[in-house]
């Protein structure tokens, strides 16, 4: 039960409540809750903490208690509607319940990070893996920001042409964000014919990207350039 108070105080602090609440809170809470804090009770509550449903009820109980400005009422089971409309969303935090076995893949994490419920974290695993892969590539190579309207010059390595890198210079007409598969389209004139090439931004074949100029455009995709004769590019 002690940990319940401690956890709820920490949660209350999280909500940005002033410090004076703490003193009032502690004194009144002790009066209402059972005085003997046996180890059985602690373990009992700790075990019940682990199931997410019970956590919801406890969290709600703390919001009810803390919002009552020190007057501690018995935590009431609120209906589902109130649960949904409560301002704080439903998630587990590792700081409030320190004896939660963390099966999330981040062992050393600042206390303020939020985690979704375990079954919700599974949906985001691919997003996390993707972000890590992108950061990995960015560490190895310097990838500048590329937006539509930029004139860029690429040095692309072609497997057949191992002697030297081919230089590609053109205007970026589109960019599609998809994590590691972020692609961008370059439009240029080659020997009198307009050519559009699409490259993956984090491809290992692209050895260097240099931004030469930035044109002001009011669009994300500049497909209208296909009908305009872009003479020089």
């Amino acid at each position, binding site marked *: 039960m002690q940990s319940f108070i401690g956890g709820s105080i920490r949660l209350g602090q999280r909500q940005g409540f002033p410090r004076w609440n703490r003193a009032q809170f502690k004194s009144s809470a002790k009066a209402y809750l059972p005085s003997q804090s046996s180890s059985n009770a602690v373990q009992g509550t700790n075990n019940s903490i682990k199931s997410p449903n019970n956590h919801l009820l406890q969290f709600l109980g703390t919001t009810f208690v803390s919002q009552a400005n020190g007057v501690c009422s018995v935590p009431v089971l609120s209906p589902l509607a109130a649960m949904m409309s409560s301002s704080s969303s439903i998630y587990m935090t590792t700081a409030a319940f320190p004896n939660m076995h963390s099966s999330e893949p981040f062992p050393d994490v600042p206390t303020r990070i939020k985690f979704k419920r375990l079954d919700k974290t599974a949906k985001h695993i691919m997003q996390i893996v993707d972000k890590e892969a992108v950061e990995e590539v960015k560490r190895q190579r310097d990838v500048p920001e590329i937006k539509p309207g930029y004139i860029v010059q690429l040095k692309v390595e072609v497997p*057949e042409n191992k002697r030297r890198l081919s230089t590609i210079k053109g205007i970026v007409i589109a960019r599609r964000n998809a994590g590691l598969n972020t692609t961008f389209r370059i439009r240029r004139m080659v020997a009198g*014919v307009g050519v559009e*090439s*699409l*490259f993956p931004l984090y*491809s290992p074949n692209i050895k260097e990207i240099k931004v030469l100029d930035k044109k002001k455009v009011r669009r994300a995709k500049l497909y209208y350039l296909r009908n305009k004769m872009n003479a020089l590019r």
Partner: protein
Amino acid sequence: MIQPQTHLNVADNSGARELMCIRVIGASNRRYAHIGDVIVAVIKEAVPNTPLERSEVIRAVIVRTSKELKRDNGMIIRYDDNAAVVIDQEGNPKGTRIFGAIARELRQLNFTKIVSLAPEVL
């Protein structure tokens, strides 16, 4: 994606200016032709005083398409027009010069003469 009735530009100096595809060579009932495929075409427009004349049926290889050409490294190339090079039965180009950019895939398909004449190989 070139199919019968498609008009194509001609990318060499063989004498033809515009071709119309009438058949895609390959399997029977083959729907579309892409870069590197051979088609049977009829000449719709020709340069005067050249060996090739209008409404002559010839073979050509497609070198540029508006439909994207995908590569294994994730690169995609898309040209602004559809173009072909007139060839004979063996696969040698009838003209002596090639205009415009040519895709690298033609080299693997044994059109080396075309690739060597090209001003730019993409």
